[in-house]
């Protein structure tokens, strides 16, 4: 312990708070939250907005599933159904998953992990949040002015001819893109220039590697989405013609542009989830992640490969045989870094000390569900099989296994894992585990049913369906209720801890991770003095007992 009481000098607004108080208590009132430059407060505000977006997207998902419970009309008419599944997709993708881990948890923990007082550009970080809010308002305003019924992919020419509020939604997406770019830019620069003493590239936590890879995709892919939706807006407002076949334009070019962003965006979504799993597994096995370097490089190669496989969304759209072959071959390559990650995680458990906390249960379910998501990707990468499965519920189930079974499980693992760190409160393990069980079971019921009906030929985005698919739709809808109930329990568990939770010791999990070696909740400037790291974040054999002290009386660690 080498507490130096001298405050760190500062020259921006945030310096006026007490640097020895936690970031939550350093300043009071609503104002310091609204114009804060502190990455932790910004991260927390992001988490609040993101959770609201998740709630909204989830409600639309449940309504869509409920409509499909019976054939014909169940609760809503067809046009409303088309709008709801579009909103579900657009909200979940653009307002929830893409910012979830990077802008929320990443913002909070990346600077702490790299030993910096803040991200490189705190003001840009604040702007990123407000741009996100503006983007959210613009895109959601579309609901009021007629909503959108194009599907979240906005395929032309339907999106240029439908009477719904596509321009508002796409303009919102355009704005949200800038928010995402600013976050990515901040992370890249922070990782390159702000690492504290002793934090070499080889000692960078895998979470930071994941955020760094994600940031690269964010800054390189998002501008292409921006120009694509800008062209789409021009198409709607002026009838520009670039995607209009009647004026010599090519509607398929839109798909190329769209997926050039949106496929890498899949890795913006999943790589951060994987990054959290690495952190959680190391802590709850008391073992370094097997193949640290391979793990870091697999994140980077996923980011790179993500740019080369967009065409696999268009195998039936009429590309040349040559490009189809190329995209299929490159798609198979994605299996290699994904496989490396899964094998390494599993091997990390070997000879570890596996502690079944809620975050660990989510991490283990991630491996379970992501394996299914990844392996079903093999079906879709195989050209001739994909022709049959493309645009069916098989694809829907596949990407939900990756996006929800992967990213959302990672997000929930991260929320439970870092909840004590962020809030200073312990949540109650028992309801959290009950919630986990319902989420895990509900998720599998919902989407396994969709795999089967998909391979049997049920096309996606159908308001009504033929009688042979009815049992599967029924099962899937019932699964969605279990899943929804589980998520509600988790939300209540976390929120109630804010009021009733016990105060958390600094390192309740006894982790060797860098972020746990600081005050809980973190201080205003993260550290009293920038720490010098002398070991890696997973080096349990080098960590002192003091590093790993969980702060609970002997024999009754938290949660057992």
């Amino acid at each position, binding site marked *: 312990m080498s507490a130096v009481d001298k405050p760190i000098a500062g020259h921006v607004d945030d310096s006026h708070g007490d640097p020895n108080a936690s970031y939550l208590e350093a300043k009071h009132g609503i104002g310091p939250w609204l114009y804060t430059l502190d990455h932790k407060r910004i991260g927390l505000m992001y988490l609040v907005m993101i959770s609201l977006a998740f709630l909204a997207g989830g409600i639309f998902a449940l309504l869509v599933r409920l409509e499909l419970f019976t054939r014909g009309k169940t609760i809503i008419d067809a046009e409303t159904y088309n709008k709801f599944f579009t909103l579900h997709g657009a909200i979940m993708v653009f307002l929830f998953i893409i910012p979830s881990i990077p802008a929320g948890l990443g913002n909070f923990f990346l600077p702490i992990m790299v030993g910096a007082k803040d991200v490189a550009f705190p003001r840009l970080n604040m702007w990123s949040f407000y741009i996100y809010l503006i983007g959210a308002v613009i895109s959601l305003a579309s609901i009021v002015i007629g909503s959108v019924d194009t599907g979240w992919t906005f395929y032309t020419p339907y999106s240029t001819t439908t009477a719904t509020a596509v321009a508002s939604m796409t303009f919102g997406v355009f704005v949200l893109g800038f928010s995402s770019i600013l976050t990515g830019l901040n992370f890249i620069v922070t990782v390159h220039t702000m690492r504290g003493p002793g934090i070499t590239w080889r000692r960078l936590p895998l979470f930071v590697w994941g955020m760094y890879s994600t940031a690269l995709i964010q800054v390189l892919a998002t501008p292409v989405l921006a120009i694509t939706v800008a062209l789409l807006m021009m198409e709607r407002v002026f009838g520009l013609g670039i995607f209009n076949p009647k004026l010599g334009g090519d509607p398929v070019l839109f798909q190329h542009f769209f997926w050039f962003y949106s496929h890498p965006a899949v890795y913006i979504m999943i790589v951060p989830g994987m990054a959290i799993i690495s952190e959680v597994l190391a802590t709850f096995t008391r073992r370094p992640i097997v193949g640290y370097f391979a793990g870091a490089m697999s994140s980077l190669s996923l980011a790179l490969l993500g740019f080369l496989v967009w065409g696999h969304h268009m195998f039936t759209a009429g590309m040349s045989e040559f490009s189809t072959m190329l995209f299929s071959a490159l798609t198979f390559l994605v299996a290699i870094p994904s496989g*490396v990650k899964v094998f390494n995680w599993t091997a990390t458990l070997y000879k570890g000390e596996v502690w079944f906390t809620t975050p660990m249960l989510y991490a283990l379910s991630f491996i*379970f569900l992501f394996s299914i998501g990844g392996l079903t990707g093999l079906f879709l*990468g195989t050209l001739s099989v994909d022709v049959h499965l493309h645009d*069916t519920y098989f694809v829907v189930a596949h990407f939900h296994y990756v996006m929800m079974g992967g990213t959302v499980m990672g997000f929930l693992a991260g929320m439970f894992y870092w909840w004590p760190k962020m809030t200073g409160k312990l949540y109650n393990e028992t309801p959290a585990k009950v919630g986990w069980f319902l989420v895990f079971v509900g998720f599998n019921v919902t989407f396994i049913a969709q795999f089967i009906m998909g391979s049997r*030929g049920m096309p996606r985005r*159908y308001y009504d369906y033929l009688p042979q698919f009815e049992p599967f739709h029924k099962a899937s809808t019932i699964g969605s209720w279990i899943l929804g109930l589980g998520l509600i329990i988790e939300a209540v568990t976390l929120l109630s801890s804010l009021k009733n939770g016990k105060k958390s010791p600094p390192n309740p999990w006894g982790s060797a991770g860098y972020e746990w070696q600081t005050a809980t909740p973190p201080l205003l400037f993260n550290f009293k003095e920038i720490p010098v790291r002398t070991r890696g974040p997973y080096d349990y054999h080098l960590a002192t007992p003091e590093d790993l002290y969980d702060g609970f009386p002997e024999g009754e660690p938290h949660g057992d």
Partner: protein
Amino acid sequence: MKLAMLAPTSFQLPEAMSSFAPTIDDLYMKIYWLSVVFFVAIVGAMVYFAVKYRKRAGHKAEAATHSVFMDRLEVFWTVAPIFILLPLFHEGFRGYMDLSVAPADSIEIRVRGAQWRWEFEYPNGESDNVLHVPVNKNVKLIMSSEDVLHAFFVPEFRVKKDLVPGMYSSVWFRPTVTGEADLFCAEYCGGKSKDNTGAELPPAQFNGHWSMISKVKIDTPEAFDKYLDNMAPVGPLEERGRALYLKKACVGCHTIDGSKGVAPTWKGVFGKSHKMADGTDAVMDENYVRESILNPNAKIVAGYTAPSVMPTYQGTLKEKEIDAIIAFMKSLKE
């Protein structure tokens, strides 16, 4: 095979009715069993390790040491998957090439997709909205879209291809058994459940992506020939008009029993004067009907909001077909 009993092909995939189906199903099941093996291995190892090394009194994590064995294992599982993935890629690509290249002796059928109907035009120039194909003959579909993206999908044939406005796409198959299969639109193309005034239609009149479904009827060659022969227009003009009324999806909006639909009824309107949306009066004669078919926005009956949702039938209906529809309308007296 005993394993196959656990998850029979027939549970995961629809009936195989084309020459592609057996090869694709075979590859599908190969990937399926490969996935099962990997999944059981990964999750099995995960559960086994998690339980065996669970946190408990007297058990501590073993300190990590650098091991050459682990290094080798890592290299192994980085490199080994390539040897599994390569054959998969190769077999998938070969199958895809088979799907792409239609044999020269294929029967060509012209397919037009539009919101939200299918039209199949046979070599004899006649068309239908149900696809009839002969068994054991190669069939090539030349497809185009009149508005937005659609996709031709017959699960039983394992074929799917997008219909892109502004270009032709094609797909081929050889049905191997006689019978009937479902035909879907697999590319989202919108939908409509409200009329132009914003009032909700009865659910039976909802139209959209999900209702752009039809049937494929796989006939014996004799039955197929007979079907083609019977399509040739015979019988009174108004009967052909009635057939077109059903086939060309006029039925979706225009009623023939006098009830109000999305569009004016056809019953008892021919030859009479009607109030138009712009305040003028117009007589529904031959020229009026012809103009409305080719340019639906030219005149709109009062009470129906402009612009009309009706697509133009320019290029879709032949002159004699327009004549038949007019004859049919004339026959619908009050």
